[in-house]
């Protein structure tokens, strides 16, 4: 019988082997140094398929230690199947503590939302990114998009905003409004709602974006200027929930989900589950709110 020594050991700490973790950390450092620039990285195999949060998982596993407190959310919820499984996996592999409490966490992995509560300099937010290339929609060829980034040639992405305005009267085009990072690179904030985009600007925490399938990492370091692309006369706006209150907590001023009942009547619920819990139990956690321009 052939003995395979490789499988006689249990997994390495935090699943990924040390050399690969080192490589991911090195690429992350590069991404921190060039805000908004997409750094290619190895994207090693994971026990989940690429495109299911592997990019976020790589970043989290390369950073996590036994002293960390981990929180995993999926579209604002700690309880979704994806969030639960990723949280369990990272905990098993790294022996870290886990929490639902946004303020308590040192490391937060998220998909499609940034927590409502203001994050601090002690925290890192890891976002799972499906498509890191903000120009992909206007340019199919990777070689060309790289040249466009290199030369800061962003006219085409501006045209899509112009067209969105002409078509719908608003710049908002679903989730993931393109952002200008530190006045140089246009990047995608991953498909977060416009509501969350102002939270990226001059934040105290570190934002890391990992795209496992596309093998790219980009980053917004703390206190970095992040501006949503907007025209001089047509300004960027976040979602408005006018005259709407959360049906569970009775509160407003948070990103809400519209929930339909069987009789097609609808109600609104605050999307961020931990924020909602805190609102129901006690005082409102600190929050950064954006006022839409007139």
């Amino acid at each position, binding site marked *: 019988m052939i003995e395979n020594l490789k499988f006689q050991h249990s997994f390495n700490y935090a699943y990924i082997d040390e050399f690969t973790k080192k490589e991911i950390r090195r690429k992350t450092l590069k991404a921190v140094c060039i805000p908004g620039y997409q750094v290619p990285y190895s994207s090693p195999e994971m026990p989940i398929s690429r495109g299911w949060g592997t990019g976020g998982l790589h970043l989290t596993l390369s950073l996590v230690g036994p002293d960390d407190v981990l929180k995993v959310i999926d579209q604002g919820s700690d309880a979704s199947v994806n969030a639960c499984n990723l949280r369990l996996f990272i905990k098993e592999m790294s022996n870290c503590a886990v929490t639902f409490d946004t303020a308590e966490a040192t490391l937060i992995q998220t998909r499609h939302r940034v927590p409502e509560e203001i994050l601090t300099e002690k925290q890192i937010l890891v976002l799972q990114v499906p498509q890191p290339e903000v120009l992909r929609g206007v340019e199919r060829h990777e070689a060309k998009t790289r040249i466009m980034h290199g*030369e800061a040639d962003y006219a085409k992405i501006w*045209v899509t905003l112009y067209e969105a305005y002409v078509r719908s009267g608003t710049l908002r085009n679903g989730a993931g409004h393109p952002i200008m990072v530190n006045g140089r690179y246009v990047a995608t904030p991953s498909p977060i709602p416009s509501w969350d985009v102002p939270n990226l600007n001059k934040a105290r925490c570190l934002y890391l974006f990992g795209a496992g399938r596309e093998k790219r990492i980009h980053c917004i370091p703390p206190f970095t200027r992040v501006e949503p692309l907007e*025209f001089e006369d047509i300004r960027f706006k976040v979602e408005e929930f006018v005259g709407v209150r959360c049906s569970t907590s009775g509160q407003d001023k948070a990103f809400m989900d519209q929930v339909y009942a069987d009789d097609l009547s609808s109600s609104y619920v605050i999307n961020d589950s931990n924020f909602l819990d805190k609102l129901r139990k006690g005082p409102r956690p600190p929050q950064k709110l954006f006022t839409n321009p007139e």
Partner: protein
Amino acid sequence: MNNNWLLRVRNLTKIYGEATPGVLERTGPKFDTNICSRTGAVVAVNGISFDLYPGEVLGVVGESGSGKSTLVQMLYFDQEVTAGEVNFKPIEDGNVNLFELSNQKKRYVRNHLMGMVYQNPRDGLNFRFTSGGNIAEKLLMANVFNVGKIRIRGADLLTKTEVPIQRMDESPARFSGGMQQRVQIAKAIANNPPLLLLDEVTSGLDVSVQAKVLDLIRGLQQDLGVSMIVVSHDLGVIRMLTDRTMVLKHGQIVEQGLTDQILQDPQHGYTQLLVSSLL
């Protein structure tokens, strides 16, 4: 020599294939080919030099494969040059070679100081954008970030080029060939460039539409005083639009002079053939 030129082109050369020494001497009208007999390299443009003056319209005629389109595409940085020098007055007062500029600077020249109208509207327009969006692209490249101003300028340009403004927010894919060409012209002149390059703008259009497009170009030229390089194999177009003409064959200039003179009294055998075959 008069020094108020706008564009000065010297020894512009484009070789597809191996640029071995002597390849330029083995091709050209003298040998009746642009393919090098030793290496098989194709010399598309062979040491072309000329000056273009402000407000002047220069015609470039020649049969297909004579290097006309390659010439303007090189001037618009669509194609890499093999050798040669181009000076352009708005850039450092014409003291630098455009091809030695950085890519950003080249893009600036392209977007702010030149306009190009391609034979095929698909090359000049993005059919995934609306026609208004196509014009907006050119304005956004020149850092106009005001939708109100973009809309006004777009409507203004489309009126000027006789495209119905009601169809501003429609894709040019749904336009007729003549309308697509006029949208392309509107895009090319969006930033009031001092130099406009027209590559076979009327080929493939029917005669009445051709006349309209030519009228439009002539009107714009008179209104804006823009310099133009007009590439065409159609002597009718050349006669109607241009002041001065160069006749190209196998990548070289075989004859140049005032358009009227060339059409009335062609000197070179090839030009005589061209003029006599004019329908």
